[in-house]
């Protein structure tokens, strides 16, 4: 197998299940060796798009190129794309080891090479000790890891992962994510990753595409998307966001309740004139909460313990604003009902136009 890095180009892809349109005009270019993520809410078409690349599901309209080759007409097994299924799809009649060896055997790899490769793949997902179990004897997360091992074992040219870590705990997820990244870098695999977890997308992917209802909302690096969302959907989907309505007045953004927030000129979307700007995105961690002395007064409506952070929902004249503060040991400083004052770091807050 020649392991030339191959990019993926998708042009004007449309796909529907009978009457239901699921993908509508997808265009994207994924660079060779890139680690790319599809992010989007449940039912937005992520799995469908991924499956179309792998060659499953209804035949789409449009083009899919891997390298220079239009693969739209190829059967799945000629595409050399490895895929981890959202439903694992382990073969119940084969042991873990035989599940993982399958792809290698199909590639006519000599038996003596298969053994070590399988063990190595199982090692990577931390399941070597369960190699001789049947799938039905594994926990959900273990099954998911076998599905992952099965696919990475074949070191495909393109790796497609459909929520491969959704059933793993944080520590294991972080570890697996690192392993995956290392493997990807080592082999130069072009990888697409479907996830609903933005932290996962942020930490692993070079770039990502945000989908909603079968349409791409924005493509870019995680930080680009976080810092410069092009619309409210992206802003809200990538991390918690307070989106306040208002309008520009000179260099300031004035909220509906009259609060004046100074903003940087770069914050406005490139395409939209200042006059169209009508919303500002405030990230919870960029708002400071204090007993008094801030810009906006409010009362704590609700408090949540998130682990490393404490989240306050504060009722203000501009609506409920979410504020995150770092958690140090001990009881959090403000109780529900406490009067607080918020100071807002709006200098770099993104602005949105419709």
């Amino acid at each position, binding site marked *: 197998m020649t392991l030339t890095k191959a990019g993926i180009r998708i042009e004007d892809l449309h796909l529907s299940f009978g009457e239901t349109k699921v993908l509508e005009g997808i265009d994207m270019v994924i660079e060779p060796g890139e680690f790319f993520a599809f992010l989007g809410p449940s039912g937005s078409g992520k799995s469908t798009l991924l499956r179309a690349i792998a060659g499953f599901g209804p035949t789409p309209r449009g083009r899919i190129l891997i390298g220079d080759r239009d693969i739209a007409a190829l*059967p799945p097994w000629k595409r050399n794309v*490895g895929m981890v299924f959202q439903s694992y799809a*382990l*073969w119940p009649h*084969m042991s873990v080891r035989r599940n993982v060896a399958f792809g290698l055997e199909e590639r006519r790899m000599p038996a003596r090479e298969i053994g070590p490769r399988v063990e190595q793949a199982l090692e990577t997902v931390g399941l070597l000790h369960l190699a001789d179990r049947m799938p039905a004897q594994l926990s959900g997360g273990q099954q998911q890891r076998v599905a992952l091992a*099965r696919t990475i074992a074949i070191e495909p040219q393109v790796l497609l992962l459909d929520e491969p870590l959704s059933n793993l705990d944080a520590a294991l997820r972080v570890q697996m994510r690192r392993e995956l990244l290392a493997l990807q870098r080592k082999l130069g695999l072009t990888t697409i990753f479907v996830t609903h977890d933005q932290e996962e997308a942020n930490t692993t992917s070079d770039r990502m595409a945000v989908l909603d209802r079968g349409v791409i909302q924005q493509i870019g690096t995680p930080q680009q998307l976080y810092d410069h969302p092009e619309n409210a959907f992206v802003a809200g989907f990538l991390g918690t966001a307070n989106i306040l309505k208002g309008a520009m007045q000179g260099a300031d953004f004035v909220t509906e309740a009259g609060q004046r927030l100074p903003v940087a000129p770069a914050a406005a979307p490139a395409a939209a004139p200042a006059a169209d700007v009508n919303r500002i995105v405030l990230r919870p961690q960029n708002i400071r909460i204090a007993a008094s002395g801030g810009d906006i007064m409010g009362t704590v409506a609700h408090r949540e313990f998130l682990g490393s952070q404490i989240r306050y929902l504060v009722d203000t004249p501009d609506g409920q604003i979410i504020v995150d503060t770092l958690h140090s040991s001990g009881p959090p400083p403000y109780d529900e009902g406490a009067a607080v004052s918020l100071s807002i770091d709006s200098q770099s807050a993104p602005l949105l136009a419709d």
Partner: protein
Amino acid sequence: MADTTTPSRGFTLFPRLSGAAVAGILIAIFLMAFLVLPVAQVIYVAFLDARTGVFTLQNFQDFFNTTLFRESFANSFYVSAMSVVLATLIALPLAYITTRFNFAGTAAIQALGIIPLIMPPFVGAVAMSLLFGRNGSINLLLNQHFGFRIPFMEGLNGVILVQSIHYFPFILINLSASLRNIDRSMEEAAQNLGSHGIRMFRRIVFPLAMPGYLAGAALVFIKVFDDLGTPLLLNVNNMLAPQAYLRITGVGINDPMGYVISFILVAFSVFSLWASFLFMRGKDYATVQKGGGGLSRRDLKPREKWLAWGVILLILAMVLSPHIGLLLLAFGTIWSFSPLPDGFTLQHFGTIFTQSSQYVWNTLIYAGSAAVIDVILGTAIAYIVIRTGLPGRKWLDYMATAALAVPGVVLGIGYLRMFHGIQLPFGLGQMSSFWGIIIVALAVRRLPYALRACMAALQQVSLSLEEAAESLGASRSSTIRRIVVPLMTGGILAGFVTSFATAAVELSATIMLVGRSSDAPLAYGIYLYMQSPAGRGPGAALGILAVVIVALGSYLSQRIIERERARQAMTADRP
């Protein structure tokens, strides 16, 4: 993988065909050559004016104008429908208890459940009438002690009783295979929501096993509709299949109505199948998808255990009674107008022992090879029909299933017409008298059984398991071989067992085709004995031999299914 050139768009003599298309075409050719054409060669006279030989539909008009035929049609339909109902009542408890509970002897019960299918011709009828007939053991005893008789075997109800006892294994086998394929969590979710027992079975388990049940029920329906042996042996003439048979086989008779009826039987069978397809359409019953395994089995409480055994023994006693009769016949001396034979003897077995090893081997070879061909074709057709988009793929299924409606004689005569005079190479002689043609005939006649089982099994395998293999680079053929077929094992074995068991006692087509007595199978031997009064005992003994051989075969297959299932399931689920 290196030479992945793009397909050239230039001129090609042969269009590029996928493996499935090639297989589909080969199967179509096979069915054409060994089913459609031979049968067409015989029944085309249905479309001819009997005297002038020109094409006409007059015969069909005559058919519908004839009261007797309309009545026969209604009778056949009634008998088939009622047989399905009765067969279901027999098969359901057996399937349910043996697949859902930890039950000692499950494999044995499942194997016993198939025995009714192995009903050797003629002897079975004698045994049945000795037990259930108007002056059979039961009625003699009833009459003696209570002064009344039960007309078990009289009229259409007799046909229904005998047919459902004979064919319920189709439902039992297919339903059991289906039940074993249901993911454990389906049923756990239902229990968790407060459902259990019969209710849960009715609402969750049974619908999920629907592909298997329907496969079995369709087989029973079509088979009973098309069956001529049982009504004839019970001397019921006013049903369609016996009418066709009587009109086709009379010596020197040249009545086109027999062929008209045959044609209508075939058409109606295809129609019933199509109706069952319509019923199943759009229903995705695949539940095996996450790598979870098999239906869980529950331990029975002592009281339940007694109840279950009671039900099972009652059913087994009923469905195995013909074979009990057969056994008495084989070991009995004279049995006439008395509840039991006058005496017992081993002599009949002695008689057959010297002569029957040839029959046994032939039967094993013929029925075994035919069943192997059937499961291969069945799997291939099932895959093509369910998983590919080949145009006209459903017709493979219709064609194969139409074989149910073709009387064995018609097929036999068709083969003689098609293949006689074709000289085979390697000194194998005439094609029509070559023993291989018997295998082909058996395979074609039993293909519907295996096919239905394979279809049901494939319907239950989640597509994503195949997709996973393909995404790992396994080609279609490799996916089929390594993923699809192993996951279908239960269904395939079910198909094998039914095909094998029924082929082992088939007579109507083989009696036409057996060229030498050294090529003859068991059923033929039984036929020979049963032509004379002195042969009744040895005939029954040979019948017992057939039953034992086939039962052993199916017991072994059962064990394999069970072992396979246990291997996949959770280890701790078993005691």
